[in-house]
């Protein structure tokens, strides 16, 4: 049987819980005796009966008297099964409301006919639009309190249609109801002879379980890469959940942002019949025809389809749930698909009060419950889609101090030569105090120019041996050189870098700064790095500016766009490799011919 989730939102006390309780009662979905039990309890406590009590499963929730979280109730019609999500209306529980609403296929917005449209009626409308819930029905509740007057209903309909229109939300209908009395909930009523539309129950069945995902390009966030070796398993499996589109065995695929390419070899599963094709929503695994080395978090797409954007910067709409405001120059964590990356707020373009859609001028920070349009930047390029095109890969959350504090959708790719790193380097160079000895003077005295030489490759030991050999070789020719062993930095200068997600980037940053200083001293500064990617090398190159870097790759070259200066064969003899490096240094005029 088909099942869909429907969320009920609205301003606090406008009657969400009453509506759900009534629906459950009228469709015989309550456990036997439950209703009587609650009624008896109310009599015993001398409290008027409330349907909300039915839903208040938790003790302390009852004592507080407000729905603090998204309770889920189940009921079914002839057509299908429903999960009703009761989203709390109180602003303090916005993140609970969002948790509930984000799972929904459709939404009911409840508005109190007597009180009219309130702050959270609007705020929730905004959230519905941002969450991309396309199907909405508005319930004008407590019609009994306004004498079932059509004019009042029409007024609210007009005003709220207008408001939702500005958010590009177009409700399927407005239904005048009395949740408490059951008017137009499960059956029509002679109280509203002027209303000819659907009841709430009919509207449930009228929602469509639209799923556009299959018709979109293939998007597969790589959640993890497994190589379980037990029982002789040799598979290297790229695991994740298909967001959109389809892929088949043999399809040419690209990983982004790295740009690495391969083809799908097999589709893996456990205790499933062999598959040759995958579809949206499936949690699967792939093996590839040729091995590529990418990290979890990349986006796998098909080479033949529309490509996502790859850029460190983008413009987004976001809403903030964090207790601390979002501010510039602070490091946040971005989670987009399977990716986790550092993130900074570059610029606030506009802060909107979601309760009335007015702009709050000149804000320097995004406060709790604000909705903001802003420019965000990651230190390295990120793969994403624009939410208008493929919303499933065009949305993200922001983590601040261990908590999911913001959520947003991508509006535009802002490609720019400008980046936080470039700004940093230009600021640093501006402030740099030059030595009294010029680099030309040092070159003349030392017999060579300064250089940052980086050995890299899969075979860590091999690259380290070569780096050490080069240091010795150059030293024996009286050159000023130093080979920095990364282990020495990690347990010394970098010992304070603890935060898991930052470790790599921070090591690279400090190494780049160190290179800038040591090349300034005129040395040939050597190091050996394993497990670096294109962007790490670009970062080192930039941080070492104005001095130059030479990257020597040992073994198979995995870089997709960074041009390494030289690639050495792993099998080659050390002397031959050294000769090649020396030749390179000559060619690049690091060392002058007659010295060797």
């Amino acid at each position: 049987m088909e099942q869909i989730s429907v969320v009920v939102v609205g301003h606090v006390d406008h009657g969400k819980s009453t509506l759900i309780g009534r629906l459950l009662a009228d469709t015989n979905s309550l456990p036997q005796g439950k209703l009587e039990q609650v009624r008896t309890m109310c009599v015993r406590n001398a409290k008027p009966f409330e349907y909300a009590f039915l839903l208040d499963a938790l003790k302390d929730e009852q004592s507080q008297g407000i729905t603090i979280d998204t309770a889920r109730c189940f009921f079914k019609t002839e057509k299908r099964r429903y999960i009703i999500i009761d989203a709390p209306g109180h602003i303090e529980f916005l993140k609970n409301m969002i948790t509930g609403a984000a799972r929904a296929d459709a939404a009911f917005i409840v508005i109190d006919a007597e009180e009219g449209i309130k702050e959270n009626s609007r705020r929730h409308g905004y959230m519905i639009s941002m969450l991309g819930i396309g199907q909405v029905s508005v319930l004008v509740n407590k019609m009994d309190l306004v004498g079932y007057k059509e004019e009042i209903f029409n007024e609210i309909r007009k005003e709220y249609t207008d408001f939702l229109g500005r958010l590009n939300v177009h409700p399927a209908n407005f239904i005048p109801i009395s949740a408490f009395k059951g008017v137009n909930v499960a059956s029509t009523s002679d109280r509203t002879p002027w209303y000819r539309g659907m009841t709430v129950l009919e509207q449930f069945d009228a929602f469509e379980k639209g799923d556009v995902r299959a018709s979109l390009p293939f998007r597969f966030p790589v959640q993890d890469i497994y190589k379980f070796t037990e029982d002789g398993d040799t598979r290297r499996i790229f695991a994740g959940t298909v967001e959109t589109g389809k892929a088949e065995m043999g399809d040419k695929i690209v990983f982004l942002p790295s740009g690495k390419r391969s083809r799908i070899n097999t589709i893996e599963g456990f205790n499933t019949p062999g598959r040759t094709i995958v579809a949206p929503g499936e949690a699967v695994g792939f093996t590839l025809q040729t091995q590529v080395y990418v990290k979890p978090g990349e986006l796998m797409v098909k080479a033949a389809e529309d490509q996502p954007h790859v850029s460190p910067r983008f413009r987004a709409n976001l809403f903030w749930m964090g207790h601390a405001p979002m501010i510039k120059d602070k490091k946040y964590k971005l989670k987009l698909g399977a990716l986790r990356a550092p993130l900074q707020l570059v610029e606030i373009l506009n802060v909107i009060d979601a309760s009335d859609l007015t702009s709050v001028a000149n804000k320097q920070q995004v406060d709790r419950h604000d909705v903001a349009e802003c420019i965000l930047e990651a230190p390295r390029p990120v793969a994403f889609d624009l939410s208008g095109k493929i919303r499933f890969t065009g949305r993200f959350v922001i983590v601040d101090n261990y908590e999911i504090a913001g959520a947003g959708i991508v509006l535009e790719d802002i490609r720019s030569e400008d980046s936080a790193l470039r700004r940093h380097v230009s600021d640093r160079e501006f402030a740099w105090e030059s030595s009294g000895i010029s680099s030309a003077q040092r070159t003349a005295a030392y017999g060579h120019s300064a250089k940052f030489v980086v050995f890299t490759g899969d075979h860590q030991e091999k690259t380290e041996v070569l780096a050490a050999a080069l240091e010795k070789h150059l030293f024996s020719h009286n050159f000023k050189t130093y080979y920095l062993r990364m282990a020495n930095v990690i347990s010394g200068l970098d010992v304070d870098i603890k935060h898991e997600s930052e470790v790599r980037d921070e090591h690279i940053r400090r190494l780049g700064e160190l290179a800038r200083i040591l090349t300034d001293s005129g040395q040939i500064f050597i190091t050996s790095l394993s497990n670096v990617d294109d962007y790490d090398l670009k970062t080192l190159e930039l941080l070492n500016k104005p001095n130059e870097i030479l990257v020597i790759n040992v073994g198979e070259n995995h870089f997709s766009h960074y041009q390494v200066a030289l690639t050495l064969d792993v099998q080659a003899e050390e002397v031959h490799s050294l000769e090649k490096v020396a030749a390179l240094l000559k060619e690049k005029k690091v060392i002058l011919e007659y010295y060797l």
Partner: protein
Amino acid sequence: MTHLEKLEATSVHILREAYREFKSLVMLWSIGKDSTAMLWLTRKAFFGHVPFPLVHIDTAFKIPEMIAYRDKLAREWRLNMIVGQNTQAIAEKRTFPDGKLSRLECCKVLKSEALKHTLSGDWTRFRFDHKLGKYVEDTNKEPYTGVIVGARADEEGSRSKERYFSPRDRDSEWDIGDQPPELWGQYKTDFAPGTHVRVHPLLDWTELDIWEYIGKENIPVVPLYFNRGDGKRYRSLGCWPCTAPVESTAGNVQEVIEELKTGKLANIAERSGREQDKEDSGGLETLRRGGYM
């Protein structure tokens, strides 16, 4: 995708997320149908492998068939099986069956406390040694901070307020008022050092879903769930002094599914055979706060 396929995909996603993010991760395996289905989902997620230890709290009052079944699967699936127990309370006969505690207190002592100390590593853990074919004292005393549990939202009111990833503070306390947001397949996976996290991959499943999945995938479950001629079967498994079977003629998975579908049991809570829940209307809630799942 069918309803079951969707549930499976979500659970697999959550399990992979947990494995990716948490270094010291374990799964609680009560031997019941839910956590056994969850164990199966783990094999789905990791393509036949179970890449973290399974923890079982042995109260010494489990129905013996459950223990035999546990060890059989541990062998067959080469599970990294960890067993914890409140050996002291059992030795001192500080239990309900020994007449010294109420049912609820007994649960607290034999389950909650044993679980807490087994996870933290300050009580002895017993690990199944596949070479020796028996349990030996585990040398690993590191605390497990990520714990995967098979709670379902439909089981009890209190569970419908849960999250897939729920932090517990250091004392395993649970703040229901301030649960993290979960949206777009993004869960709270960042935690201050020392935080304990509960992961609930089965939150969206119902009792019927579990049985249908067991049927579809042909997952081996303890035969205690089926009528074996006496017109009774267990609907929920626990310790023998506190668990009663229900009247039922369902003798296999299909018949259990049929029985659930007829609604014969619809108005009887699933855990109604569990006597400890009756001592206090918020029984499970009280236990949850103490860390018992």
